[in-house]
C-alpha cells in the first residue's frame, strides 16, 4: 500500500491512548519516587520529584500529539 492509500484520519487515533499513557506515566514516576523515599527514609523528597517528572512526561506526550495533529502534512492526508 502506498502512502496515498493510507486511510484518512488514521493519525488522529494516536491520541486514543493518551489518557492511559499519561495515567501510567504519572503512576510509574510517582510510585518510583515513593519507593525511593520508603527505602532511604527521605520524607517525601523523591515522591515530589516523581510527581514533577510524571507531569513532565504527560505534558511532553500532549505536546507531541498536538504537534502531530497540527502537522500540515497530516492535515492534507
Amino acid at each position, binding site marked *: *500500500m502506498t502512502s496515498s492509500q493510507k486511510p484518512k484520519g488514521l493519525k488522529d487515533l494516536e491520541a*486514543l*491512548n493518551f489518557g*492511559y*499513557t499519561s495515567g*501510567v*506515566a504519572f503512576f510509574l*514516576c510517582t510510585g518510583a519516587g515513593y519507593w525511593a523515599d520508603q527505602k532511604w527514609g527521605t520524607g517525601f523528597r523523591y515522591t515530589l520529584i516523581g510527581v514533577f517528572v510524571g507531569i513532565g*512526561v504527560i505534558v511532553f506526550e500532549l505536546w507531541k500529539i498536538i504537534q502531530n495533529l497540527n502537522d500540515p502534512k497530516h492535515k492534507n492526508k
Partner: protein
Amino acid sequence: MSAPESGSFQLSDYIMHHVANSNEWRLPFNMHVSLPEYVSLHGLMTLLGAAILIILFTVFYKHNSRVPTGLTNVLELGVLFVRDQIVYPFLGEKDGRKFLPVFCTFFFFILTLNIMGNIPLFATATANINFTAGLAIITFFLMTLGGLFKHGPVGFLKLFAPSGVPVPVLFILAPIEFIGLFTKPIALMIRLFVAMLAGHIVIAAFLGLILTFGIFALPIIILPVAISGLEVGVAFLQAYIFTFLSALYLGQILHPEH
C-alpha cells in the same frame, strides 16, 4: 449461581466470581468441573481460544480455493483488514510483511477470547491482567528488539534523543522519551484488561440487582441485554485498538522519521 436466598449471600462475591479467575469451570445445569492446579479457568480459555484459531485456520480455511467462499472469505476479510488498515500504513510493505503474522495473531486471538467471554459457558481470559500483561510484553519486545535489529544499539539509543533539540534540553527529554518505552505497553495492558473487566462487572451488577430486589427489579433485565450487545462491539473494538496501537508503537520505533 449459588443460593441468593441463603443468609450468607454476598453480592460482591457473586459479582467477582463471574469475572475473577478460579480453578473451577461452572457449566449449565449447576455442573462444575474442577480444574487441576496447574491450569486456571482463564488459562483453559486461552488454550481453548488457541485451539479454535488453529482449527479455523487449518481445517476450515481453504488454502487452495481460487475464489474464497464461506468461512475462508470471512477469515481472509479479517487478515486483509489487519494488513491494509493497520500493519501496512504504519510499518510499510517491506517491514509490514515481516510483522503481519504477529499482528494477525494479536487481532484474531484477542477477538476470539473477547467473543468467548460473551458466550455463556466460557470465561473472559482478556479480563485477566496476567494475560494482557503477556500480550503487552510481546509488544514491548517487538519494540525493543525490532528497534535494535533495525537501527543497531547506537541508533536505537538515538531514538530517545529527538532531532533538532538543544543539548541541555536533551538531558530532560531523553529520560522522558525513555520512560515512554515502558508506559506505552503498560497502558496497552491496562486498557484491554479494564475494558473487558468493566463490561462484565456492569452486567453482573445489574443482574445482582435482580437477585437483591427480586421480581421488582425484573424490568432492569433490559439493561444487561443492551450492554451485552455493546460488549460484542467492544470485543471487536478492543481487538482492533490493541493491534492498532501495537503496530503504531512498533512503527514509531522502526520508522521514527514518519
